[in-house]
């Protein structure tokens, strides 16, 4: 009797606990949706809706609002400037993503192996350019790359670059835009990787140290493989962002009309279609293609590399 009653008692208690836990779980889920709501709302308004709207628009003649199938896509594919823009953007993305992955990994690993206080100070400094809008960074770089006003004048002269045109043709536009984008974007990633590296299990580092690994070996053999997936994720995000290149080439005209680049990147072409030619349909078609390409590439990388598979 007493045993039985204890059993029933504990069974009821367990049931109760489960119910409580379930209710708490539901409450947590509801709470997380509540917290996510503002983001989801903004994502719908400024992300999903415009993409869907552009997708719809891309099948219409936007002047008389008549459906004309794939005519806008045909127009985009017939445009002789598109292949050059594709090549430009791909070369920019290749340089920029490479630069970001290598640069961010090296700097993050180096910061992780020095004293905490110095590392934090340096991380803040690296982050600062990211706090400046990219348009301001472009203007700043136009000064840095002009041999007549640059603080790095002696370096530029030593290479044999005497005018802005020499520098631009020397480095190449893709390289210049990659440098601009790298300095404005990498600081944020360095901060993120600072967090990722400091949360690596201390006992693994300890074990490696006991086994005689020096700082370099620790960084390259232990830490790098452990953050590799995050680096790939950064690569994917940068790739998708890089395809959207717009501000850097668009502002080149500030260096003088002879440097203006109106149709260098694909996003600029979409801008040209809509705001120079007034053809919002063709612009929507090109934008849809751009989004489609980003999504396909991301899906391939995610599934082919089983990126989100838990170990």
């Amino acid at each position, binding site marked *: 009797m007493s045993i039985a009653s204890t059993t029933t008692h504990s069974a009821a208690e367990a049931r109760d606990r489960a119910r409580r836990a379930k209710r708490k779980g539901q409450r947590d889920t509801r709470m997380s949706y509540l917290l996510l709501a503002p983001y989801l709302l903004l994502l719908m308004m400024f992300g999903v809706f415009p993409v869907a709207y552009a997708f719809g628009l891309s099948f219409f003649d936007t002047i008389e609002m008549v459906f004309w199938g794939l005519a806008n896509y045909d127009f985009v594919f017939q445009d002789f*400037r598109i292949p050059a823009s594709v090549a430009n953007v791909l070369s920019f993305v290749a340089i920029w993503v490479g630069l970001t992955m290598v640069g961010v990994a090296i700097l993050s690993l180096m910061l992780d192996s020095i004293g905490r206080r110095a590392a934090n100070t340096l991380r803040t400094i690296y982050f600062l350019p990211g706090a400046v809008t990219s348009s301001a960074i472009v203007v700043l770089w136009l000064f840095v790359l002009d041999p*007549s006003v640059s603080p790095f004048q002696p370096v530029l002269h030593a290479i044999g670059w005497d*005018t802005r045109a020499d520098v631009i043709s020397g480095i190449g536009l893709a390289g210049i835009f990659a440098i601009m984008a790298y300095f404005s974007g990498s600081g944020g990633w360095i901060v993120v990787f600072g967090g990722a590296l400091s949360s690596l299990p201390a006992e693994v580092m300890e074990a490696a140290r006991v086994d005689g690994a020096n700082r370099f070996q620790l960084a390259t053999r232990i830490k790098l493989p452990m953050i590799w997936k995050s680096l790939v994720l950064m690569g994917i995000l940068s790739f998708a962002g890089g395809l959207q290149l717009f501000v850097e080439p668009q502002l080149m005209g500030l260096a003088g009309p*002879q440097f*203006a680049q109106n149709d260098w990147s694909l996003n600029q072409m979409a801008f040209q279609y809509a705001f120079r030619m007034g053809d919002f349909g063709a612009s929507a078609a090109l934008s849809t293609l751009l989004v489609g390409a980003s999504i396909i590439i991301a899906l391939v990388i995610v599934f082919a590399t089983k990126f989100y598979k838990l170990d």
Partner: protein
Amino acid sequence: MNLKILAALSGLAAGAMASPAFAEAVTLNVWSDTPRLTMFDLYDQTHDNVTLNVTTVAPADLIAKIQLALQAKSEIPDVIFMSDIGYTAQLSTRRSNYLMDLTDKVPQALQDEFYPNGNSPCHVNGKLLCMRNDLAHMIVWYDKSLMEQLGKAVPSSWEEFQKLGEELGPQGYSLGTGVEAFPLYSYLVSDGCDIVMPVEGKADTVKIDLSTDKCLKPARMVDAMLKNGSLSKLGPFEPDFVALAKSGKVPLMIGPTWFGEYVIKPTYEWPAGRLAAALPLKWDDQTQPLTWSWGGGTYGAWKDTAHPAEAVDLVTWMATDIANQTNAVTLPAHRPSAEAWGARLAKDAYYADPNVFQVEAEAAKFSHPGYASLRFSVSDAIAKVVVQPLASGGTVEGALPALQTELTNLAKLNGYQVE
């Protein structure tokens, strides 16, 4: 009976609405750039029947903003100032059909008061779509004292210009820029080269042929002058070129009519009493010069404006009112206004020669009739295909075939027939 009274009353009401006694001041929405603000303001003050609601729009943003307004079908301006002559063609396409046809709305007699070809950028396929504010043809600007000091005569032909460059280039003097798209464009068309020239009498048809001697000759001249340093590899607004111009190393350059007041005086800071102007250059085998332009703004009106009569009046007044244009910042395209404007310039002690205006007015006769409004930018194409390769050792002559391809593609893309 009742109906009749009603009809009579409504007729009366309609009549009353239309009569000026009951008319309220009409409000026109105007998009202007900064230099034109005072001119619009003057119209507002001198016309009681019209109130102007003026918005300042950055010249480079104008087309984009109009596209947005047309798309949104609201806030469309009634009258605009266009700083780029290409905007006229770009705002009269099927996709962005904004501009009003002024052909029958501006009296022919008034149109005839403009300088020859003054309104050529406003004529698109035989229609007058805008009114030109100012002329901007290329003339020769020179530093009179410096030229005398160097013992050189002002050239009157391109051959003499090139020879002057051969002499002065190696001594570190520059005769202007060889890499800015517009000056380069103007050198290239100086002998009648067909860089996207509208074909007379054929709508939307252009001629592009850069393989002729008319194009190769000026291209070779620019290449030779870039090589001996007499044409600079810097743009006219780059800090190093400005420093060169300030330090007395630019005795002479080819520039548009607005260069004197707006570049040489405030930016190059040549001292007073030195700046003079001469007629555009001609090639030895030409009977007279053929001079290109760099800019020259225009006014246009919205074709669906609620107040067409007032909008046309504003556009016409802005371009042709003498009292208004006398104080304009640039050389008026309307001849009677320009003469009043020139009288003001003649009193300006800054110039070494009181006849600067006479030179500008005389030069207007040689203005290229092919300076037309196009739906794409030839100067952007020159910057991309010709200027950029120059930095890595290319030549202008070598870039002409690529320019031909680029321009032909651009013309076809924008719906032109290419001959």
